[in-house]
């Protein structure tokens, strides 16, 4: 197998069982233990079972608190060093207007990070602005969102190798029962 460096699963907004019954079976087959080194979760696991599932996937699991998470012990935000990157992680409902890059930029400056991961909108995206990468894994269950996002289950996998990142964005196409992948590559300080 090719050396992908450190594999980081970026996942969130599961909202089970409130908004979705389960993660798509096609995704479940991909999300198996002993593949990833880190899991970064944008929150809204809402149940213990979901939490345990993530904990089984990788040795390093970081979870922040989503707007529908009841566990008070989860942090609102945190930063994690992986490879040469300082990664900021938060759910995203705290940053208004929701999904605004200019507003998220303030958060990125506050967390002093190279990559800012946030969710909440249920729409996956990989965007660059003013030297910072903004990553949104979407909702892995395709959970409903009243703002019109959601419906398309998605998650993101980062392969971090020193100063380089390859970012794979997986989307589930329900009509075709297939998984679509798109790829973005970037380096630190680009």
């Amino acid at each position, binding site marked *: 197998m090719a050396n992908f460096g450190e594999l980081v699963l970026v996942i969130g907004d599961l909202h089970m069982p409130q908004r979705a019954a389960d993660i798509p079976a096609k995704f479940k087959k991909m999300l198996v233990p002993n593949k990833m080194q880190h899991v970064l979760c944008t929150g809204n696991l809402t149940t213990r*079972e979901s939490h345990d599932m993530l904990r089984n996937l990788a040795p390093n699991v970081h979870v922040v608190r989503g707007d529908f998470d009841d566990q008070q012990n989860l942090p609102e935000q945190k930063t994690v060093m992986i490879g040469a990157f300082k990664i900021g992680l938060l759910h995203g409902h705290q940053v208004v207007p929701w999904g605004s890059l*200019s507003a998220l930029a303030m958060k*990125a400056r506050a967390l002093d990070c190279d990559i800012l991961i946030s969710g909440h909108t249920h729409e996956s995206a990989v965007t660059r602005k003013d030297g910072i990468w903004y990553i949104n894994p979407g909702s892995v269950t395709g959970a409903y969102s009243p703002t019109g996002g959601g419906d398309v289950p998605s998650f993101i996998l980062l392969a971090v190798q020193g100063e380089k990142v390859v970012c794979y964005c997986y989307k589930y196409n329900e009509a075709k029962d297939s998984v679509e992948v798109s790829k973005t590559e970037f380096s630190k300080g680009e």
Partner: protein
Amino acid sequence: MSAQEEQIKYLTEATKKVKEHAFYMKRAIDANDLDTTLSLAADMLRELKTSLLTPRNYYELYMSVLDSLRHVEDFFASLNAAGTPVVEIYEKVQHCANVVPRLYLLIAVGGVYIKSGEAPAKDILKDLIEMVKCVQYPTRGLFLRNYLSQTSRDKLPDTGSEYEGVGGNVKDAYEFVLQNFSEMNRLWVRLQHMGGDKSTRKKREKERQDLKILVGTNLVRLSQLEGVDTDCYRDVILPEILKNVVECKDTISQGYLMDCVIQVFPDEFHLATLETFLTTCTKLKEKVNIRTILQSMMNRLSLFGEGEGRIPPDLDAFRLFNDCITKILEERSNLDLAEILRLQTSLMQFALKCYPGRLDYVNYCLGMCASVLSATKSESLDETSVAEVEELLSIPLSSLALQVLDLQQYSELLTYLPYENRRQVATILVRSTLFSGGSLDSVEKLEKLFKAITPLIKDDEKESSGAPEKDEADEAALAEFKEEQTLVARLVHMMKSPDTDVQFKILSMTRKHFGQGGVKRIGHTLPPLVFAGLKLAHKVKKRELDAVKVQNKLKALKEKQEKIEQERKERQAKKAADPEYEPPGPLEDIVMPDESAIPKPPATSCRKVFQFLHEIVTAMAVSYPDLSLKLFLQSAVAADNCKFKAIAYEFMSQAFILYEDELTDSKAQLRALVLMVGTLLSCSNFEKDDYDALITKTTQYAAKLLKKPDQCRMVTLCSHLFFVGSAEDANHYHDPKRVLECLQRALKIADGCMASSAHVHLFVEILNHYLYYFELHNPLIADKYLTGLIALINEHIDSMDHGEQRTEVEGMYRNTLRHIARKKEEEETKDKFKSIVV
């Protein structure tokens, strides 16, 4: 001396003698002395005459004798190879005085005799099988015959064997084995009746169990005969075996041999003889456990059915098994309820595996159980029967899932179970339903499902409550309850009717059922229903919009049609007045679409769906204020998205009421406020007055938070409420003055946080907001404010204590200044930013 010690003594003595004789016998063999060998072998074999040993110990002795007897066999073979005709040895052995040694030696020579080809195999075999008849003592006879069976194993004139032809054919082979089998079974049965009173019966039974393999080996031999095909098995072998089984009238023998038959013969044979076999089952002794026999036959056939083979369509195996079971139930009075249920369960399992499409079979088995249960007089079932019914109802779930609800008898049977067991079955039913992935798309289907899983949906009126009481609940019970409710919650996402009207009926009906669940359940079950309702609202809205579009199109078509009609009339009038008149061209024919093809507007309006949601969340509000507030906010965004300003406002105000009346915890207040601000910013269709009222209220809440840093941050966040969208947007809302006021107020609060030295952090956060609005071209956010704030931060940052807090602030500040520096360089922004002094 105990019986056991006695046994050991006998065995040791006998074995010692065997070894002694064998030692001298081997010396005689080495000396090539036939007469001495025979005499010493006879001495050794005489030990097998004993009747003192238990079968197990007799077996030990037999094995050590056989060990040495091999040398004699080899010796006979070598004599024959050297030129001595076997018939000579055969004659000589006949002179041995004792019966048992003589017969063993005869069999040993017999083997060599067949191999030599001096006489036809069938004749020798017939000779031997006749001679061994004279040993009638069970243990001795069984072992002697076992020796015969072993020695003749590779010398039968089976089809394809070297002894076929002159030596006979397969008929001679199987007749020989069958005869031996029949005699051995008789000896084995007789062992049971070897004197003794009732107390020795158990001991005898145990001894017989030890010996059964000797009898069964004959069946294995039969199954190994190449020449025995299906026809031969059906016409000769099986009838002969079964005749012995039935006629021996012995419980142990019948049970063992029937099972042996199932295990040793191939599937094809069983399929060809199933009826015969099952008829025999009904003729067995009462104490024989027929269920295990039938079960093992059904398992065997269903494994075959699941594998590459298929049960031939002309063989109605289900009916045959069922007839057999029916007959047994009629004739046997000793079967208890649990055993009857077990019989039906295994028949049902067979049907599920071998006839996957035949739900009527499953229903039939369930029905049989139901009628048996209804016939029992007692009020409640015994524990074993309850477990059996639970098992019976759980088994079909893995393959049928929701389809069980189409089986009339299924629900009927459920009523026989106590609440707790029904709850277990219900849990499996829900799991299988979720696993099967089918959709719950009709009200009828759901009614049936809810009826079947009632123990998960609500408490039992009579018995224990399904939801654990808080104070007495142990953690495990609570976890189990949570798990069950999570399963029920997941069911909601399988309710997927493509017709929005049906979907609404489904959700309404579900709401009624869930509503009966009590406070503990609704916290789990109602939220998913709210989200399903919100999803539906968007769909209904789309359907309404589509319907309007279609109606508009139809209207336009109709108008055009009328116009053309009028033109036609005018032309006709012209033609009537002037026959020379030529119309300018043909008129277009408008074909109106078929009524049935026109999509109908939904019967349930989007507005009605929102009313439904409002009612649900209101019902939860008192028990779950925090969650309900969030659900109201979600509903508000959805309503705004569907362009219902008033409804969105109503949802918002309900959330505000909850905030004011129910949220007392300052952390909960902070979290709620953040969401309220975000929600308001996501709505873009409020009436201006409504929006003003909402944001004014929100800002007031922010200013009233308990902790100063929280106040500061929330007032900052609220500034966003006054600056929504860009100036080009139709729905933009810009109040630059109020933005500035918010930020200035935040600065003032931050200034008051000096004691906790959180102020510098807050200053930098506020600076970032100034910067944010500066970039968004808020006309009142001027460069001077930025310059001033930067100077203020510079002044305070140096006085901060060194530590984590300072590092954090410095990082954020550095990034902010770097951002300004970048903007000063970029072409589009450098003019705007040049006046900011860093």
